[in-house]
């Protein structure tokens, strides 16, 4: 019998106070009713414009090959086919690389991964398009392909030069350390598996313009890439995002090629064109979370305190650069996680393979870096016979300036000691750990384990100039409001939060604010909605735009209320859809009346807003700087049960205490914490991306690729948000939440190791691969059991 997941702080979550502000209160999803009634429109749900064609990709069948011949003449003759386009049909640049220009939209003379686009078929429907695609002739001369990090390293195939961050003399410190641990570890790829696959609809208009509806986290980049491919100015391209059925980083750069193909098709045929990938295509053509290989040498004292750490990381970038640089940087920035290392050398490099180009995924390298550190601490605890939670606590950052991160930033406002104490108490960690030890002694085939995981995660794009955002707020004369901001909605609740910010600043009910589709003709030159920064950046821009309008309305309202004496104008309150002097609340005018009066008085009722994060920068060559505006903190206690017969496990209970500052909308932040944790457990335990020896993705559908389902969610899930924790210089004291809780799931690995170790004698070294699938766990259990086997073969 399972228990209902509890939510300790729902009961006393702050209700909207007398101020009627929608901030800091639970709120229904901005599109909630539309989602439950099926009315919410995603790109593929938009009504088909008349004459719409289907764009179908013809892709390479080799991981690496020279193209000897391409012939689309037979395909073009098929009735219902309007065009088959090849690279030479591109009017502008055949280039969609977002940072480094190493990604042709369509291959010309060489293919670099299995699934690379070679031709685009435009046909009346999908069935005809598929038949035509089979008639496109491409002749290949296969070339040797690099299909693993190891193969790439051996071949000297890299996408970047090494990035090094160092401090002190780690080699000397290692030599002097009483305890030394070294080893290798791998973390695997992870498919985004957003439920809505990649989709774009392009409609061309007058003067070579094109309007796109794209499922993308980065409309401005799609706009720029489409303009480049078409060879037109960016002012000829509008990209609009209704909403996404999930993004998780997979639609940050990788929506652009499909949008560019749709736009190219629309330009070539004069017809609207939709490019929609089915699940198998989506999984085969798009990049995933970067697999990372790590090698570490750690030195500790006998109580588990870190003295020195050398780590070398190599990630698998796939066939092109994409965002691999920045992802590797973030992995290096998060190798330390929450712990001070006196002497260190962290080196990272991106390998180039002949696999899909790996890309952003929730955490953006952070989880992969952190995993290495947690592996070191877990091994240290196992070796020293210490509670892994104690080892972690001993290594937390203390105050600056004595302790700085490897790149020299102070860990200001470190909340981990407080979170640690509160969560240890609320989760009853010590008692449960003792109970588990007792349970394991009495249970031969089923063992339990408990793991504690703290997280410190840096908030800001580490490419500093990206930390900017814009908004456009439009008030109509009836007092209703349209809100445009630069962020996209992918399920993270950004629109709900931005609407709350806007309603709060203007003092109107949220229902009077309509959040518009994100569009490049409303808010230009935006950064991706990524790096957990959506609310931080756009929220400030929205606030600023609203303030401009409110301050213009203030004198108008003062006249209406005859409250124009010294100080009264500035004292006017805008709240609950009314404007009044707090000292005389009985005399008020409605927001709509003020707006109408302002219109008659020829006062502008719209404004843009803009924000950039102050004081952040990073010098990559020196490996020093302040790349982050602040840090988000959290911790989890995870309890699992492992079957030694099948290798299967259950997550029995999870307690999380997470720091989101003063939550903008607690119901959303709780959902983000829960969802991120579950997704992290997927990465670490059940999601395994496999390619065959030819570089073909074997796990290209939910039949073969297992994301967490109902039964994988924790049976007892207790999530709390840290109380009384406002953050300085952020939007209303809140903190970013999208990514940090993902890494709390590493606690499941610590718990699994605890359970696996219990199959062997005390201090059994655990050899657990990642992801910890049942196969991996079973192998680890067998190794542990073998360590305990007596010479005569008995257990």
């Amino acid at each position, binding site marked *: *019998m399972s228990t209902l997941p509890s939510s300790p702080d729902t009961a006393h979550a702050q209700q909207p106070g007398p101020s009627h502000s929608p901030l800091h209160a639970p709120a229904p*999803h901005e599109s909630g009713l539309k989602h439950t*009634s*099926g009315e*919410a429109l995603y790109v593929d749900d938009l009504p088909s414009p008349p004459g719409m064609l289907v764009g179908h990709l013809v892709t390479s069948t080799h991981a690496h090959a020279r193209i000897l011949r391409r012939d689309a003449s037979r395909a073009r003759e098929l009735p219902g086919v309007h065009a088959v386009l090849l690279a030479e049909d591109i009017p502008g640049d055949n280039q969609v690389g977002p940072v480094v220009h190493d990604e042709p939209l369509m291959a010309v003379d060489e293919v670099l991964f299995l699934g690379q686009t070679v031709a685009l078929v435009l046909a009346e429907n999908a069935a005809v398009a598929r038949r035509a695609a089979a008639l496109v002739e491409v002749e290949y001369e296969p070339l040797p392909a690099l299909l693993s990090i190891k193969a790439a390293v051996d071949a000297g195939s890299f996408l970047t030069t090494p990035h090094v961050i160092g401090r002190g003399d780690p080699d000397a410190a290692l030599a002097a350390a009483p305890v030394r641990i070294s080893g290798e570890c791998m973390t695997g790829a992870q498919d985004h*598996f957003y*439920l809505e696959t990649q989709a774009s609809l392009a409609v061309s208009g007058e003067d070579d313009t094109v309007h796109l509806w794209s499922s993308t986290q980065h409309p401005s980049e799609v706009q720029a890439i489409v303009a480049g491919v078409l060879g037109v100015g960016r002012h000829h391209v509008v990209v609009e995002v209704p909403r996404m059925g999930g993004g998780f980083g997979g639609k940050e750069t990788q929506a652009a090629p499909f949008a560019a193909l749709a736009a190219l098709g629309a330009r070539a045929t004069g017809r609207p064109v939709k490019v929609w990938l089915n699940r198998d295509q989506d999984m085969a053509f798009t990049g995933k979370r970067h697999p990372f290989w790590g090698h570490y040498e750690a030195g500790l004292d006998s109580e588990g305190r870190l003295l020195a750490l050398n780590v070398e990381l190599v990630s698998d970038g796939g066939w092109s650069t994409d965002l691999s640089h920045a992802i590797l940087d973030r992995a290096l920035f998060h190798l330390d996680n929450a712990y001070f290392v006196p002497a260190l050398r962290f080196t990272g490099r991106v390998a180039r393979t002949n696999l899909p180009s790996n890309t952003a995924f929730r955490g953006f390298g952070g989880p992969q870096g952190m995993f290495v550190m947690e592996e070191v601490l877990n091994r240290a605890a196992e070796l020293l016979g210490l509670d892994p939670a104690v080892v972690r606590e001993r290594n937390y950052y203390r105050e600056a300036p004595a302790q700085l991160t490897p790149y020299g930033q102070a860990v200001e406002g470190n909340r981990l000691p407080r979170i640690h104490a509160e969560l240890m108490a609320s989760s009853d960690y010590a008692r449960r750990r003792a109970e588990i030890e007792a349970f394991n002694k009495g249970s031969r085939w089923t063992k339990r384990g408990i793991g504690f995981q703290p997280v410190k995660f840096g908030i800001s794009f580490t490419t500093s100039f990206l930390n900017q955002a814009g908004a456009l707020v439009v008030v109509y004369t009836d007092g209703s409001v349209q809100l445009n901001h630069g962020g996209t909605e992918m399920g993270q609740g950004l629109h709900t939060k931005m609407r709350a910010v806007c309603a709060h600043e203007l003092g109107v009910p949220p229902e009077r604010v309509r959040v518009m589709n994100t569009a490049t003709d409303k808010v230009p030159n935006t950064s991706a909605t990524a790096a957990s920064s959506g609310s931080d950046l756009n929220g400030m821009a929205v606030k600023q735009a609203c303030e401009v309008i409110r301050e213009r309305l203030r004198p108008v309202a003062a006249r209406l209320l005859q409250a124009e004496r010294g100080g009264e104008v500035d004292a006017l309150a805008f709240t609950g859809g009314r404007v009044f002097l707090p000292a005389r609340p009985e005399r008020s005018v409605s927001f709509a009346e003020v707006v109408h009066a302002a219109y008659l008085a020829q006062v502008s009722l719209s404004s843009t807003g803009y924000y950039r994060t102050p004081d952040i920068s990073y010098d990559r060559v020196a490996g020093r700087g302040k790349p982050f505006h602040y840090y988000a903190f959290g911790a989890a206690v995870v309890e699992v049960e492992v079957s030694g017969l099948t290798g299967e496990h259950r997550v029995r209970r999870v307690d999380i205490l997470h720091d989101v500052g003063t939550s903008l909308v607690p119901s959303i932040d709780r959902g983000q914490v829960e*969802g991120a*944790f579950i997704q992290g457990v997927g990465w670490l335990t059940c999601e395994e991306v496999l390619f065959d020896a030819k570089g073909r993705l074997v796990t290209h559908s939910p039949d073969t690729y297992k994301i967490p389902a109902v039964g994988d969610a924790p049976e007892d899930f207790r999530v709390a948000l840290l109380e009384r924790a406002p953050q300085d210089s952020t939007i209303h004291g809140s903190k970013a939440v999208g990514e940090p809780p993902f890494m709390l799931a590493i606690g499941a690995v610590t718990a699994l190791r605890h359970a696996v170790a219990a199959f062997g004698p005390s201090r059994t070294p655990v050899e657990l691969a990642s992801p910890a699938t049942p196969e991996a766990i079973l192998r680890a259990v067998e190794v542990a059991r073998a360590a305990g086997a007596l010479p005569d073969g008995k257990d």
Partner: protein
Amino acid sequence: MAPPDDDSVPKPLLPQLSRRAFFKGAGASALSATLAPSAHAADPSPPVLGPEPAPLTLSINGRTVTVQADPATTLAELVRNHLGLTGTKIGCDRGACSACTVWLDGEVAASCMTLAFDARGRKVTTIEGLAKGEALHPVQRAFVENDAMQCGFCTPGMVMSCAALVDRNPKCTLDDVKQAVSGHLCRCGTYPNVFKATLAAAQGGGKAKGNT
């Protein structure tokens, strides 16, 4: 595993058009076609449809609609592309995610694994037909009140399964809810709130409507 494939469920959620029934049916006819062509010829089977589009009349959300459809069209494609009912989502198109869940005679079915022609003579309910006019189904309301969605893409399918459960068993337990949504994938990880919402709807007296 998912109720659709579990014979031990006393009242199967997919009594007639489960994935397995679909495969069994497809496999059986392929078998008879290859092994016993003569028997097949003697069989007074219904007239062969397709590959050209053929007229199809269906009852959808209480209305009778007639369309011309290719016999290979799935019910999911039909409602989305021919009828503009895009609330039914396609997440995998192979019966593995349940985003496309609709009701056939009040029982849940994966519309991507159901041929549109096989829905003849049955009452099809899609997410758009769940509310009675302006009155939301209690599960729809509870999903909003309990924030049981993030990106919302899996939500219509989840709502259809949970509503079917609450209608059939207003006294459902957490385990019943887990069973009912066990075939659904939600990448945003909204499972905890889906459980809460469905139980809230049941406790609030989700009224049983029987097979609508």
